[in-house]
Structures are given as structure tokens and as C-alpha cells.
């Protein structure tokens, strides 16, 4: 608007101010986008439900973004693997063996395996369980893989 008023001596000032504004915009967007990328990583690490401590640090819009991302990821995963879909957040590492030795880090309760047997997961108990069942629990911190 100052440019329109024909005061050419202010052009440089306007340009400078505009550059500053653009820089600020870029910084803000970079910060917000980086936070989004971290939140996205949380979905892949923790699963659909975030721990309360983390949710506490997220703004309402970020929570909304997360929910929408979660939903669109779920739709995609469901569409990809036949009838039930393929959970892409499992099988992060190549499988080395079918069964793994795990130690329970905290009380979890009863846990059922594929063939119907239930295992009681108490703190410090050790079990020899199928790998694919434990992956989720290992990521949540309930079980610990003993090498």
C-alpha cells in the first residue's frame, strides 16, 4: 500500500520488511512441520494410542492432525493386505527366529497366544513366546527381548 502511494524512497524499506516477514514465515512453518514429522514418527513407534505424557505436549490441532493421519494410515493398511489388511507397523526388523525369549518388565496380566494357551505376564517373569505376538508389547515397553 505504501508502494501504491508512489513514495519510491520507501521501496527498499518495504522490500526489506517483506524479506523479514518471509523469513519469519519460513521459520514458523519449518518449526511446525518438524513437529508434525515427529508426531508422525510417534504413530509408528507407539501405535494408535499415545501415552498421556506425550499428548500433554501436543496442541489441539496437532492432536487433530494425528487423528486424521492415524485414520488415513489405517484405511491404507486395511486396503493393502487381502481381507484383514496388513499392519505395516509390525515386522520392522527382519525375522531371525520364530520364538524369542522375553522378560516381563511390568505386570500386564493374562496374554493369550495363537494356540489358545494363556501366559501370565508378571513382572520379571521370563517366557519363550512367538515373535509376532510380542512385537507390539516390546514396543510398548511391557516386554523386553533377551538376546
Amino acid at each position: 500500500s505504501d508502494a501504491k502511494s508512489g513514495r519510491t524512497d520507501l521501496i527498499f524499506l518495504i522490500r526489506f520488511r517483506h524479506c523479514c516477514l518471509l523469513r519469519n514465515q519460513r521459520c514458523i512453518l519449518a518449526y511446525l512441520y518438524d513437529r508434525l514429522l515427529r508426531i508422525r514418527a510417534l504413530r509408528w513407534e507407539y501405535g494408535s494410542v499415545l501415552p498421556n505424557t506425550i499428548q500433554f505436549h501436543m496442541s489441539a490441532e496437532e492432536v487433530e492432525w494425528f487423528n486424521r493421519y492415524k485414520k488415513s494410515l489405517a484405511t491404507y493398511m486395511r486396503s493393502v493386505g487381502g481381507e484383514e489388511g496388513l499392519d505395516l507397523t509390525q515386522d520392522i526388523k527382519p525375522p531371525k527366529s520364530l520364538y524369542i525369549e522375553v522378560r516381563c518388565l511390568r505386570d500386564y496380566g493374562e496374554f493369550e497366544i495363537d494356540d489358545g494357551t494363556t501366559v501370565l505376564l508378571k513382572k520379571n517373569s521370563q517366557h519363550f513366546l512367538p515373535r509376532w505376538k510380542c512385537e507390539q508389547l516390546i514396543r510398548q515397553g511391557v516386554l523386553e527381548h533377551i538376546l
Partner: protein
Amino acid sequence: MYLQCLTESMTSTPVTPVAFRLWRLGPDGLCRFPPAAVFSGALRLRRGRSRAPAWLNEKFAPELLESKPEIIECVVEQLDHMEANLKRAKRGDLKVSVHRMEIERIRYVLSSYLRCRLVKIEKFFPHVLEKEKSRAEGEPSILSPEEFAFAKEYMANTETYLKNVALKHMPPNLQKVSLLKSVPKPNLDSFVFLRVLERQENILVEPETDEQREYTIDLEEGSQHLIRYKTIAPLVASGAVQLI
């Protein structure tokens, strides 16, 4: 020999056609599994034309490669088939655990492939969508329909978020931001290792420094090279080279 085959498979690199080997040597119980249909998939996983090369190419290429829905469908069908067979087999059998291991491996490769694609889609989402929009009619798509839907939702989601949190509070002339310009493009100049599957002649290589001039090279079959991705991108798409 049976046991040696087993231990070999357990420690070797993923996706070995274990089941195939067992079928050749093993006891007759295995004949219950329809050999050709199920194991040919596992075989193709290793040899030439399908899954493992597609997986490796996708892992090492800096940009999103063509989508291969037929392969994915095929592998998923194989997995379902194998799972169904396993359910019917009797429990406690050694073959069951070996097959289950194979299923795990195949599932890992498939998951890894799809995850790799998703990561690239999310990283380069404006460019991927732009490329898809400007694609000519006959050209193969780089996105499957589900991936396209996912990419569009991701873009809309991110745009809405940025608009609501930051952009709408800014002065009017700054409220639009071109994501196409701000989000970094895939680096096609990055170097990749490759193995040549089909002999290629006269590949034009751009000069690296000012003193060099562009020159042509011939790629012999079976040779391995380290070259900029940009130079050989069309060869990856046609399957003439394999990224390693």
C-alpha cells in the same frame, strides 16, 4: 542334509526359498501343500523379475518408483494361501515352523517395501501428487489408487493444519504458501550402486567438473557401477539394471 538345510535357512539372508528346498528333499508330508502355486511365489521372490528386485530398487532409489500392484496382490495371495495351509496342517510338526518362518520373511519383505513407499510419499508429497497430476494418459502410474488417496489426505491434512495454526494469523499477502516450492524435492543426483542385468550401450554421462566433457559408456551385463541416479533412472524403470 535335512537339518543342514534348516540351519542354513535360519541364519541366511531373508527370503530364501527354504520351502522349495525342503520340498525337493523332504518327507512326503509336504506334498499336501500345493507346491507350484505356493512356492513359485517364494522362488520368484529370489530370482529376477519380481518382488526382491522391486523391494531393493525401491529401497535404494531416491525417488518413488512405479507402483507394482500385481506383485503386491500376488504376494498377498501367496501369504493367505500359506496361512490357510498352515491352519490345516497338524500341530507340532517341524515343517509348520519352517513354513511359518517363510511366511514371516515374506511378510517382512512386503511390509518393508510398502513402508518404504509410504515414507517416500510422505516425504515428497507435493511433488508426488504433482507428478501424478501431470502424468500422460498411457504412462504407468507411480501411485496405486490407495496410495493416491493416502497422499491426497496427507496433503489436505497438513495444509489444513498449517493454515489453522499459523497461516491464518499472518498478514493477508503471506497466507498462501506453495508446498511444492517449500518441501524439498527428491535428490535425483545422489549416487547409487547398481548391477547391470541387460547390456546397455551409449549411456550419456554428464560431466562432473568444468574440465570434463560429457561422455558415453557401455554397461556390460553383470558389471557393477556407482553412478548418479539421474543418469540411469529410465533403466531402473525398465528393469535393465538392479540397484544394490
